[in-house]
C-alpha cells in the first residue's frame, strides 16, 4: 500500500517524447516492494519503453494476477486502467478485455507462481489462442509475498533461504511458450535494462501473443548462494543471444549496418527489429531451431536471454475470430439487435 503521495513535480529539463510527455507521465504510485527488488527494474523498463514509444498512457490496459509481481501495475502507468484479478487468472481476464476493445494495448504482468503453478492452464491457453498482448512473467523462482516457498520455475537442486533443496523439475516458460505457438518469445534479466527496454518495445508493437520471461531476483528470499535466480548467478550465466534495436514504423533507418551478423525483421505495423546476433547459430525466425537452441543451452546451465523467436506475420485472436474492426464496447442496439420484425419471423419458424 502507498502511504506516501508521490510529488507531481519534475525537473524542467526532463525530456519530452513525440506527444509531449515526460517519463514522469508514465509512472505510477510509489512501489511498496523491497528495496532492490528486480520487479521495480522491470516497472522502470516498462515506463521507459512506453515513453520511448510515445504511447498515450490511457490507451494501455494493465492486468495482473496475485503476488509481488502482480502488485507492480500500480507502480507504472498511473493514467491507465489497471486490474489486479485473482491468482493465476490474469490471462482469461485479459482475453475477455481484449475481446471487448481491440483498440487498447494489453499488458499482462504475472509471476512464476501466478503463471507456472496456479495459473499454468490459463497461461497455456491464452498463448495458444494468440491473444494480442504483452505477457511479462517476473520470474524469481520463489513465492515472495508468502515468504520464500519454491515456485514451479525453481531449478532442481536450487536451495531455499531456509536451506531446503528443490527436488521438482523446473517449468521453462520460454520453451513452453514457443511450443504453444507464441509468436514473440523473449527472455530478459531485470538487471539488464538496456536489453529489456527494446524487447518490451518490440513486444508492444507485435501483433499476437508476445511473451517475455524476465529473470527478476527476489532480494528478500532468493538471492543467496545456492539459488539459480540470484543476481550473481544470473550475471554469471547470462548467455545473451542477441542485442535488439527497435526501429519504429516510418522512422528513417540511418544507423550504419553494425558489424557482425544482423537480422532485420519487419513487423505488421512497419516497425523493424534489428537483431545483432551474438551467437551465429541462433535463428530467431525459426521456431523449431530456436527451441532446440534454448533447450541445448539451458541443459548446460546457461540462462539464454534476448529475443528468442518472432513470427512477424502472426495473426491474433481477433483475426482468428474474424471480428469487426469497431470495438465491441462501442456497439449498441442498432447494430447488435436483430429487431422485432426478425423476431416475428423467428417465432413463425417455431410453430
Amino acid at each position, binding site marked *: 500500500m502507498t502511504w506516501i503521495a508521490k510529488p507531481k513535480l519534475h525537473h524542467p529539463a526532463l525530456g519530452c517524447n513525440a506527444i509531449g510527455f515526460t517519463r514522469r507521465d508514465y509512472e505510477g504510485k510509489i512501489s511498496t516492494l523491497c528495496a532492490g527488488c528486480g520487479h521495480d527494474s522491470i516497472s522502470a523498463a516498462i515506463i521507459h519503453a512506453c515513453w520511448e514509444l510515445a504511447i498515450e498512457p490511457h490507451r494501455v490496459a494493465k492486468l495482473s494476477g496475485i503476488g509481488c509481481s502482480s502488485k507492480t501495475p500500480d507502480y507504472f502507468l498511473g493514467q491507465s486502467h489497471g486490474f489486479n484479478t485473482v491468482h493465476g487468472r490474469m490471462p*482469461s481476464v485479459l482475453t475477455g478485455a481484449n475481446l*471487448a*476493445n481491440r483498440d487498447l494495448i494489453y499488458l499482462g504482468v504475472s509471476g512464476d507462481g501466478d503463471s507456472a503453478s496456479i495459473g499454468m492452464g490459463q497461461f497455456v491457453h491464452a498463448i495458444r489462442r494468440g491473444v494480442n498482448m504483452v505477457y511479462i512473467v517476473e520470474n524469481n523462482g520463489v513465492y515472495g509475498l508468502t515468504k520464500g516457498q519454491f515456485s514451479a520455475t525453481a531449478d532442481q537442486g536450487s536451495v531455499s533461504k531456509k536451506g531446503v533443496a528443490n527436488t521438482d523439475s523446473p517449468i521453462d516458460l520460454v520453451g513452453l511458450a514457443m511450443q504453444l505457438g507464441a509468436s514473440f518469445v523473449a527472455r530478459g534479466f531485470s538487471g539488464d535494462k538496456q536489453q529489456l527496454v527494446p524487447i518490451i518495445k518490440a513486444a508492444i508493437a507485435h501483433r499476437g501473443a508476445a511473451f517475455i520471461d524476465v529473470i527478476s531476483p527476489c532480494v528478500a528470499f532468493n538471492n543467496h548462494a545456492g539459488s539459480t535466480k540470484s543476481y550473481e548467478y544470473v550475471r554469471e550465466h547470462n548467455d545473451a543471444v542477441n542485442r535488439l534495436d527497435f526501429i519504429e514504423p516510418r522512422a528513417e533507418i540511418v544507423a550504419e549496418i553494425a558489424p557482425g551478423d544482423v537480422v532485420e525483421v519487419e513487423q505488421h505495423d512497419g516497425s523493424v527489429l534489428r537483431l545483432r546476433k551474438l551467437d551465429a547459430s541462433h535463428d530467431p525466425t525459426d521456431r523449431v531451431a530456436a527451441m532446440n537452441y534454448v533447450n541445448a543451452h539451458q541443459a548446460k546451465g546457461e540462462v539464454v536471454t534476448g529475443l528468442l523467436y518472432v513470427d512477424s506475420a502472426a495473426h491474433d485472436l481477433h483475426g482468428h475470430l474474424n*471480428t469487426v474492426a469497431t470495438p465491441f*464496447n462501442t456497439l449498441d*442496439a442498432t447494430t447488435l439487435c436483430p429487431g422485432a420484425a426478425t423476431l416475428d419471423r423467428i417465432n413463425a419458424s417455431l*410453430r
Partner: protein
Amino acid sequence: MNPICAVNDFVVKFANVNGSGSASANELFAKAILRMGVPVSPRNIFPSNIQGLPTWYEVRVSGEGWLGRRGGVDLMVAMNPQTWDADVREIEPGGYLVHDSTRALPKSKFRDDVHAIGIPLTEICNRSWTDPRQRQLFKNIMYVGALSVLLDIDVAIIERLLGEQYKGKEKLLDANKQALHLGREYFLHADPSATDRPSTAGLFDKEHFGLRVQHADGVGDRIFVDGNSAAALGCVYGGATVCAWYPITPSSSLAEAFQKYCMKYRVDPGTGANRFAIVQAEDEIASIGMVVGAGWNGARAFTATSGPGISLMTEFIGLAYFAEIPVTIIDVQRGGPSTGMPTRTQQADLVACAYASHGDTKHVLLFPCDPTECFAFSADALDLADRLQTPVFVMTDLDIGMNQRLCAPFTWDDARTYDRGKVMSAAELESGKDFGRYKDVDGDGIPYRTYPGTHPDKGAYFTRGTSRDPYARYSERGPDYVYNMERLLKKFETAKSLVPQPLLRKAAQPTTLGAIHFGSTAPAMDEAIVALERNGVHLDTLRVRAFPFADAVAEFIAAHERVFVVEQNRDAQLRSMLVNEFGIDPARLVPVLHYDGTPITARFITRAIEGRIGVQQPREADKVA
C-alpha cells in the same frame, strides 16, 4: 381390463436405445399432434452417454393445455429390450404397449391389464432395406406411421413436417415417407388372416384402441422451442458480444445456439466480419474470467454453465461482486452434488449461486419458468448486470433448457435501448465531474464506472479484489471496508425493484393456505392448483421470479397461515433463503420437495399437499421421491 379411452388427453412414452436415431422420429410425432392444434409437452429423459444406453421420450398430449408432466403412461412404445420389464410396469392399467413383434416374446413378458400391440418392425424393415443403418433408422419412422393410424394423426401433416425437415434432400424425404407408409399400411390393411403377415403375439383390433387425437384449436400463436435456444436468442437481442463457455450438459446447446443465431444475425453485411466473439475456454474458470474481463472493459458478455461449472467459477464470482463488474451467468441446472445426475433435472443450485464465493456475498438470481421467460430474462439480465454492476444469474434447468416447450411467442420492443448503467463519459470527466469509482453518489448504492481508455488523464482507476476507499485507493481501514460492504447491501436492496416481480394467482375463494414456487415447477403447479380446487382445497400461489425477493413475497407469507414451498431439490433451498432473508418462522413454510431427477408432476404436488393438510391419507407418491 377396460382399455383407457381418451381424446387429446394422454401420455405416450417412447423407450429407445440412445444413438438409434429415435429422437427425430419422436419429435416428428409430437410436432404432428401440435400442428393439429393440440398442446403437447415432450420431455427427453436421456443418459449421459452417446450410444447404447436407454433413453426415453415422453409426450404429454393435453387438450386442456397442461404442459407439466402428468405422471403415468397410457401408451408405451417399448423399443428397448434392456428396459422392457420396467417400461411395461410403468403403463397405467388399461393402457397400451406397442412393441416390435418380430421375435415372439413369452406371455410372462406382458401384462393382463395392458393391451399389447405388436408390429413386426424389424421384419418389415429388413424386407424393405438392405443397409443396416437404414434398417435401424426407419424402424423409428415406421412406428410413427403405425401410431398415426392408431391415434388418427393427420398423415398430411406428418408428410408436411417431413417435407420441411428434408427440404432439398429429396432422396431422404422419399425414404422417410416410404417408412411412414409402411408403418401405416400395417394397420390400414389390418387383416389378421392375411398370409403375408407374420404371426405375432400382439395382433390388435383397432376398434379396441381408445386413444385419439382430434383437430383442435388449443395452440394459438404459441411457439414450440427449447429454453436453451430461447436464452441464446435473448443474449443476441440483449446485445451480448462475448460468450465464453466450457462444454457441460445441459448447457452446451445454449452456447451452440448462440453461435448459430450470431452467424445468422450478427455478421456485418458489408465486411462479413463478426459482431460477436465466442470462445470455448479451457475450463469454467477461464470462461468466467473472460466474461469478467469483457464486462470490465464495457462489452456485454455471458457464460452458460451448470452446477459443476458454478462451483469452479465461485472465486471469480466473488471478485466480480466485490470489484463490481457486470457478469451474466446462465445456469442450466442439473442434478448434483458433484457430477450428480448430468442428464437429469433439478433446481438445486439456488443457495450455491445466491451466496456464491467466500466472504459476505449476495447475488441477483432470475427464475424463468419457460422458454419465453428464458428469452426475456436473458436479455434483461444483461441490462441488470450493467445497471447493477454485479453478477446476474439466470437460473434455468434441464427441464426447460433441453426440452421443447409450447410457450408464448417472443416479443421485443424496437424502441428499447440497452441500459449500460452508470458509465461516466470522457465529456463528463472533462467537465470536472467528481469520479469516485466506489462512491455512492445517488444514494442507491450503485457507483459510477469508467471504461478503460476513456480519458487521457481523468477517470483511470485500479480494479482489485482487495479493499479500497470510495476513490478506489487501496485501503485496509475498517471504516472504508464497512462503507463499501454496506453500500453493496444497499445496492442489493436497489436490485429488488429492478428484477422481475413475483406473480400472484388468487384462489377462487379466500384461503389461509398459500404455495410458493418458481422456475420449471410452474406448469405442474398450475395444474395441481386446479386439481386441488376440484377436491375443495384452495390455495393462493405466488411464483417467485427473482432474488432478492420482493417485499410482496414477505407480504404473501404473512397473509397466509401455512405456505407450501414447492421446489425440486432435497434441502428446500428456496425455503431456506426465505427464512434467511425475511427471518420467517420456519414452521410456517412447509416444504414440498421433488428431487429424483425427473420433472415434478401435478400428481405429486396434489398428493403431497392433500396429504399434509389431511384431505386424504398420504399415498405412496407423497413420499419424497
